[in-house]
């Protein structure tokens, strides 16, 4: 499950780094690797800040290894904010969320998995080997970002760790399953990307009219169920009629 634990940051007790993203956003960084223990600290800080937001803070954005705090610097200054966060992180409890395990249908046919041959060639694998490796793993949802309802996944097998493209490629279709930089995402919206499209799911991870507009939460687990092109087309129609074809079970 754990990819690469930085030996210096493996301990969950180290103080975070504070980085500035301009004068109105503070990054509280607990490490620079994909590590469930680091992500737990991010989610713990997020939970405690959301429970009692300091005046002048605007939004908290949890990511793999850091929490971005958007704030109004005319209402709270950086030093005050850092002091509040230090106090919380010194005593932050473990994150206890309600994690679920999702199974998402995924088609690896090159008709939909536009870059699977290119990625497999770079990785020294056959198309089928790449698909099988990707379809067998269990992934942790570390965060959502980039597009509405888009989960970022850790747990990509070592053999599928591929560098991002030097420059982005043209937009992929909605539902694209992408790998890049040792990570995996499922993209609910068509977007340009620097990653490789190696599959597509018929499920909609964001649907405005659905009661739960956002299907998957940070902290959940995710598996892919490989399907062929015909099954994809069938499921896509069922999704269009409002059905949720992903399966959810308690973790």
């Amino acid at each position: 499950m754990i990819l690469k634990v930085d030996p210096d940051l493996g301990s969950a007790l180290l103080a975070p780094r504070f980085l500035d993203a301009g004068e109105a956003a503070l990054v509280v960084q607990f490490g620079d690797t994909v590590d469930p223990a680091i992500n737990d600290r991010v989610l713990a800080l997020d939970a405690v800040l959301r429970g009692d937001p300091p005046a002048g803070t605007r939004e908290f954005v949890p990511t793999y290894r850091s929490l971005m705090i958007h704030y109004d610097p005319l209402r709270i200054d950086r030093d005050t904010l850092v002091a509040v966060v230090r106090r919380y992180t010194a005593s932050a409890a473990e994150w206890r969320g309600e994690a679920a395990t999702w199974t998402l249908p995924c088609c690896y046919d090159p008709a939909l998995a536009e870059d699977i041959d290119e990625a497999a060639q770079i990785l020294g694998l056959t198309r089928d080997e790449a698909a099988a490796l990707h379809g067998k793993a269990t992934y942790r949802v570390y965060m959502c970002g980039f597009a509405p309802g888009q989960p970022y996944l850790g747990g990509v097998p070592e053999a599928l760790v591929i560098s991002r493209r030097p420059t982005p490629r043209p937009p992929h279709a909605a539902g694209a399953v992408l790998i890049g930089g040792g990570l995996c995402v499922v993209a609910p919206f068509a977007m340009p990307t620097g990653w490789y499209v190696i599959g597509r799911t018929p499920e909609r991870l964001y649907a405005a009219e659905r009661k739960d507009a956002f299907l998957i939460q940070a902290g959940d687990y995710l598996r892919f169920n490989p399907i062929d092109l015909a099954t994809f087309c069938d499921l896509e129609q069922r999704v269009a009629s409002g059905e949720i074809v992903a399966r959810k079970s308690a973790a």
Partner: protein
Amino acid sequence: MMVAASGAIIRVLSAGPGTTLQDAGRHGYLRYGVTAAGPMDSLAHATANLAVGNPAGSTALEVSVGGIDVTAESGSLRVAIAGGEFALSLDGRPLPPAVALNLEDGAVLKIRGGRSGSWCYLAVAGRLVVPEVLGSHATHTRTGFGGVDGRAIVAGDRLGIERSGSSKPSMGAIVAPWLDRPLNVIRVVLGPQHDYFADDQITAFLAGPWFVSAKRDRMAYFLEGPRLTHARGYNIVSDGIAMGAIQVPGDGRPIVLMADRQSTGGYPKIATVIGPDLGRLAQARPGAMFRFEAVSIAQAVAARREEAALLARGIVVEPLVRMHFTSEFLLGLNLIDGVVASTPSDSLHD
């Protein structure tokens, strides 16, 4: 689109690409990957809104250099235009580039990309009647959120207005010298990932010179200039992105992430444009040259405070008495009509 049964309507006669409805942004959903959107130039957006007596963050049309022609239907509307130095006319008569006026039933207001600037804002006194998506009218076309069906404004769109307050009788030039902003120097706070670059690359980044590329939109402005090299590779574990973040992908060409940016991303961000300089950069046209200057958080906050103080003083509108006078003549008038504005919110930027 459907409009309210009563009240005046803005009807779009023609529209170039890239005009959208924008309020102060869709805030609170970055954690689900939902982009805030909002104005590219929040100072100009606020100026136009305040000039018609609206709160600073009200929904207004953000007009691109593609331009737009509109008319009023079923009544007259109080409108204000401010932003870049666009070419405006009312029933064929030229207007100053920042102006407040009554748009009478059937009158045609033309807005065209003029001498400089990339965006201008058409604010209407009252409230534009469009559905909210996650609490906001801000349009994000890539995900189809907000505005009119999540898309840019097109010919034939009819926008209903719920009016509040009374109309001012006169036409007037908006006195907003703060919208006359030379590009020259764009201030940044270094980081959050400037430690992914060696010192000589930081020096090269600050020295430039940089040129705004033709490749730019509400999501990102690509820059042309020295190629930057990374000291520690260009893959980072994806983290949050603030508006104005300058990411450097593998090809070493910086990209400034703007209002429609994604909420998170995985290229190192060498620096972040300070809030008060975002609108200035947004207004730059392709080919414009500038350099970056690194400032401290304290300096950036001071600049924000100055900007907030400017707007807090209110917007002055100078009357244009006779419509057949040339805009040059009218601009020379020095009659103070009075203060129209209300007090803006604490700070314009995210």
